């Protein structure tokens, strides 16, 4: 991430730059010389291709995204999952890594159960999920919260620094899905504190000194943890 470089916030219809040499990238169009923004977000002008990095909006699924999903329905061949956004997600029985009795799908995943899964395929308005990768599967217990999916990189931080800071100082397990669903498990107090810390990260994402603020929020003992991560 190039945080030092100031990125301009643009609104739809705004002329970003008037330059024959530049090309329109994500969420921009070219009209004559002008490159015009088509979406609210930050401008990336680091290359010849001008693009917009969205700061708001719903989850936009890509193949390979790791997501947190919740079972919304069970049918004979798999589970329908709630993924956020206008998609319906489906986890077929064949994409589960272990043997599951066809007649007892609810034993593996009942309605309301939370899973960590990967997007294996995207169709027009539905996505297919898989559990056949390391670290995926059912998430037992804990709580699930929703955040803005575009703030997920901030919650994770540089090489996971932010999420590790929260995990270590609240003694919780945290799993952040790229769809903006966050699963937290630990002691009740730890979960609550982690949840509030994550919400604070999302709220303060655009401002400077984020790590210090979160450290302060989490209390003193996190200091040693941060140093390890930074160095």
């Amino acid at each position, binding site marked *: 991430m190039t945080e030092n470089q100031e990125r301009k916030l643009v*609104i*739809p219809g*705004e002329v970003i730059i008037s330059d024959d040499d530049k090309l329109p990238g994500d969420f921009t169009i070219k009209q004559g010389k002008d490159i015009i923004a*088509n979406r*609210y977000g930050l401008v990336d002008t680091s290359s010849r291709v001008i693009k917009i990095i969205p*700061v*708001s*909006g719903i989850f936009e699924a890509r193949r390979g995204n790791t997501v947190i999903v919740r079972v919304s329905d069970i049918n004979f061949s798999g589970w329908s999952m709630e993924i956020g956004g*206008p998609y319906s997600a489906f986890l077929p029985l064949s994409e589960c890594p272990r043997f599951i009795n066809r007649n007892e799908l609810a034993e593996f995943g009942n309605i309301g159960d939370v899973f960590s899964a990967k997007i294996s395929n995207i169709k027009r308005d539905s996505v297919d999920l898989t559990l056949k990768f390391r670290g995926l599967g059912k998430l037992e217990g804990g709580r699930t919260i929703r955040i803005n999916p575009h703030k997920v990189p901030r919650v994770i931080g540089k090489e996971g620094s932010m999420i590790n800071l929260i995990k270590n100082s609240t003694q919780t397990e945290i799993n952040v899905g790229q769809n903006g669903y966050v699963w937290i498990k630990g002691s009740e107090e730890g979960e609550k504190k982690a949840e509030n810390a994550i919400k604070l990260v999302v709220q303060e994402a655009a401002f400077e000194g984020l790590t210090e603020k979160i450290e302060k929020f989490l209390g003193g003992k996190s200091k040693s943890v941060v140093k390890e991560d930074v160095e």
Partner: protein
Amino acid sequence: MPYTKRPDKRKMDELRPIKTEIGVVPNADGSALFAFGKTLAIAAVYGPKHLHPQHMQKPDRGLIRCNYNMLPFSVTERARPGPSRRSKEIGLITENALSGVVDLTRFPSSVIDVEILIIQANASTRCAGINAAAMALAHAGIVMKEMVSSVSIGKIDDKIVTDIIKEEEDWKEGEGATDIPFTMTSNSKDITHLQLDGNISTKRLKEAVEAAKKACEKILDYQTRALKGEKINEIN
């Protein structure tokens, strides 16, 4: 008494003090507040999300659904809550005013819900609603070609005035009052919505459209500044 000066001492082409900001509804995907003086509207955008009932789904594009709602306490005499003929009509014209700039092809079979609440009303509520809705859509990360800005122009007696208030809307003397709500896009300067209530000659209407275009430019500036994080409050 002829109409020579405005009841609130504004110039003929002057807007009321504006208050506007974004992010007023934390649970929405995008939201905005827009106020012309005592007319205050809040818009919240949810989606794109699944569209039900299924027969409304279009396989090639999404749908934008606007719900205009005047709160019971927004007017001097309590407005009956719930949908009415008027609110349905204004919801529809808002949809039409906005659908031209919103890219609905990205999420087929989905819907973008726009909820517009009028908290306080003193004429041109639909214009405040459209302004707030356009900002909320942008804030929600919806792909849009450009912004829209809306203003109401009036012909009160024989004067063309910008951003009319209730007192002017109810003007009875002379030629009476004509109310023209007007919406224009930010780049192509296309008119996406124009209504007319009253009498006006084609010549005067052209004058009114020119006045509206000028006012829309000013409003766009407020919308842009608010979307870039500024909290604007010129009221009181």
